[in-house]
């Protein structure tokens, strides 16, 4: 019975696409790098497809999350970013769920600068849903993103996922359109703030706000809140040589904690 309820919950989560299932809390943190030029990591294109446009060096990253402490809601992601002469290519792979319900995701993204201030990114996402006993479903949908640097400390960004809105999960249910508009402000070398307004089709707009603080050269603290699901998140990153380790915690007042671990390496 619990299993059926869990599957039902997860299917319903598809309708809160960007917010609960399938996308790790860490990946939705706007202060993680999408709106800053420094501190970018290979998962940055999850928020904004243009997030990797000015990446100078190749990066490789892994993340794992145990949503609300439930093994059934485990998810893992892998990301590789390789700069090219004109921009940067990113490949991201992810898995969410368990043997009775599984989402497999892949994303291929290309971002490039258009001049000194504007960045553009285009990402194609592949998602496959597998529930034993039911026919598997898969879909490909695009995501486009822009970033604009108002000055060296202030950046705004805009992205939309599935802009056409007509793509469905193999005729089953539509993939919602998700609009994001965000801003990042680097207050100082130590501190920055970022916020995003996220509007998913058929849902009330949500605000994600975050603060980034570097008390020491190799340590970064990030924290924020998702307004609609009332979840707080706290991430702590430690940089050692070319490797960066992040431990994150997402907290929901009723559902509990979701720990995340992220590793990425700069080559």
């Amino acid at each position, binding site marked *: 019975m619990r299993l059926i309820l869990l599957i039902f919950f997860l299917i319903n989560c598809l309708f809160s696409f960007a917010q609960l299932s399938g996308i790790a809390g860490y990946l939705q943190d706007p202060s993680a790098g999408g709106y800053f030029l420094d501190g970018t990591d290979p998962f940055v294109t999850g928020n904004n497809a243009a997030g990797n446009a000015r990446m100078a060096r190749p990066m490789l990253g892994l993340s794992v999350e145990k949503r609300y402490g439930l093994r059934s809601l485990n998810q893992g992601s892998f990301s590789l970013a390789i700069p090219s002469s004109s921009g940067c290519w990113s490949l991201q792979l992810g898995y969410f769920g368990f043997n009775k319900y599984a989402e497999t995701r892949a994303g291929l993204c290309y971002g490039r600068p258009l001049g000194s201030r504007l960045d553009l990114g285009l990402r194609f996402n592949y998602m496959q849903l597998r529930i034993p006993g039911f026919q598997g479903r898969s879909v490909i949908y695009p995501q486009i993103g822009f970033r604009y640097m108002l000055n060296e400390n202030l950046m705004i960004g805009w992205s939309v996922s599935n802009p056409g809105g007509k793509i469905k999960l193999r005729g089953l249910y539509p993939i919602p359109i998700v609009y994001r508009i965000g801003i990042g402000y680097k207050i100082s070398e*130590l501190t920055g703030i970022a916020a995003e307004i996220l509007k998913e089709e058929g849902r009330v707009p949500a605000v994600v706000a975050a603060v980034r603080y570097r008390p020491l050269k190799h340590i970064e603290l990030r924290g924020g809140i998702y307004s609609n699901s009332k979840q*707080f998140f706290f991430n702590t990153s430690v940089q050692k040589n070319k490797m960066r380790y992040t431990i994150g915690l997402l907290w929901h*007042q009723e559902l509990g904690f979701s720990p995340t671990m992220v590793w990425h390496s700069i080559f």
Partner: protein
Amino acid sequence: MKIYLSVLFGIVFFVKTFSQESINEDALEQFSVQENQSQDDDSYHQSIEHLLKNPLNLNTAETSDLQQFTFLSALQVSAFIRYRNLAGKLLSIYELQAVPLWDNETIQRILPYIKISRSNSLKEDFMQRIKMGEYSFLSRLTFVPGRFENNYKGGREQVFSRLQYRYGNLLQWGLTGEKDPGEAWFGRNSGKGFDFYSAHFFLKNYGIVKALVVGDYSVNIGQGLIQWQSMAFKKSPDILLIKRQAPVLRPYHSSGEVFFQRGAGFTIGKKEWALTGFYSSRKMDGAVIYDTISEEKFIKSWKTDGLHRTDEERALKNKWKLKTYGFSFSYGNAFKNISFNSLHYEMNASMQKPSLPYQYFSFKGQFFTNLSVDWSMTYRNIHLFGEFAIHQFKAPAFISGLLASLDNRLSLSFIWRNISPSYQSLFGNAFMESSSVSNEKGLFAGFSFKPTVKWKIEGYADVFHFPWLKYRKNAPSYGTDLFIQISHRLGKDAEILTRYKEETDSENFLPSTSGSIYNGYPVRSRNWRTQFQIKLNHGFIWRARAEIKWVYNGGLQPERGFLAFSDLIYRPLMKPYSAGFRFQFFETDSYESRVYAYENDVLFRFSIPAFQGKGKRYYINLQYDFGKKCSFWFRWSQTVYMKDSSYLPVGKNQSGLNFQLLYRF
């Protein structure tokens, strides 16, 4: 020189105008909204008014002196003490700009109340304190509107009088008398004159004695888990003011009849340690019943409104006795401190446990013990504080917070609290959603961001959980509170702000008549306010506000509330008079969508009425200083309800009158 003095005086006047208007107004409004009552304790107001005439010398001020300013956070107090320890005594007020974490706004707010002097502090000689202080006599007569029953023993007037002697903050004593509307006052029905009397004697910093109080006083311990009787605010736009800070013992001289101790207390200390002990014995109002079977007396109820207007209310006066004793031992300084606290209550009869399910964990019995340890620590730009308490050696409560100033432009605050349903506190007042210190878990996070000198963005998010039932909540419940405010200063003379607040909670839908355990529904309220304040020419200040409220009662039609007012205040420079006028319109669908608005009243009096129905309200305040020794206030207010109002009180037009006289000698 003249221009310099004029500019400086103008700045002080401007600061006085804005800072006096804005000090605690938001927090007082929020207090009234959450507690559904007004604040009686005017001790803080009195302290601030005293400081206007007797500014605090920052070169000799102690941590406790700075903590009395509610707009100074713990981080700012620590930063100032550290700066003074390192750099020595300040040379001028301009040096305040060099103090870390003291921004221009803080400096402007504190300027009217401080001075920089190289001379020593007030003499500690006891005879000098007795002879060189100042007496003041305050008398207030208020006629309040509202329902007035025929069986009230007294007239409609509210009378308050206070005689006080004060030598700085080192010695004070006083006598206070108060009578509420409807209570008898002298004459046939009252042989004692006032319904409530209060007296106090308070001595500070006399050798090893840091504080000595006899009479009525308030006790403030830790973060309010076991005891906090002074004024304390909860959520407000000032997100750095989440920490409780005040001396353990403070003299009490307000009109509130419940939240204070009556007896004696002392604090002795030297260098980094301090020991406080106190004892109190008071008679309290309430119903006491005698059980003929067990032949025992039980306290059935505790009456805390302080009203003794009718024979029934008078019959409950001073019916049971409460003894309180405790101590607090603290060790530390302005940067790190730990305290161990103990508090015991003893009643002359057993408190009877109420029978309703939500009161399952309410205290019952005759003896009541709370222990706690509280701490605070400042490390660079971060301040940690907290308290852990235990009730009857069984039920725990924990609160811990962090203040962080990440940059000159960005500050954060966090508070986590976890208070078990079985934890009880008679006079606790901690930073929580509930008014009682019990049955709550929650996380509060706030930020304050100043992208430029003229812009400020403040906000907080609070998520909380009530593990057990509460009044009007027949099941454990969750709630959230989100707030954001953007303010902009248009030059020196104007400020505009807009704020949005959203709260979610759950409540019982209807009284449970079907026998079902719970039929709750989510309640969401949204509140949007915009206001501005402009200093016009020749001492005129114009202020206006518009506020809209929406209340969604889970499935029912949303209810709306609206309020708009316009103030015109006249405070000319170098004149002994001032005046204020307000015109206000309000319209709400029901009591649930009521809207609150802070009103300027006579000195030391708070007025934060709630408005429901449809109507207009206006008031006029007048003040005149007869020389330096005597001041007089007059206030007239009226609320006129319209014929189609959803709420029509008895007596459609409700008028109020206040007269107040303050004489210093």
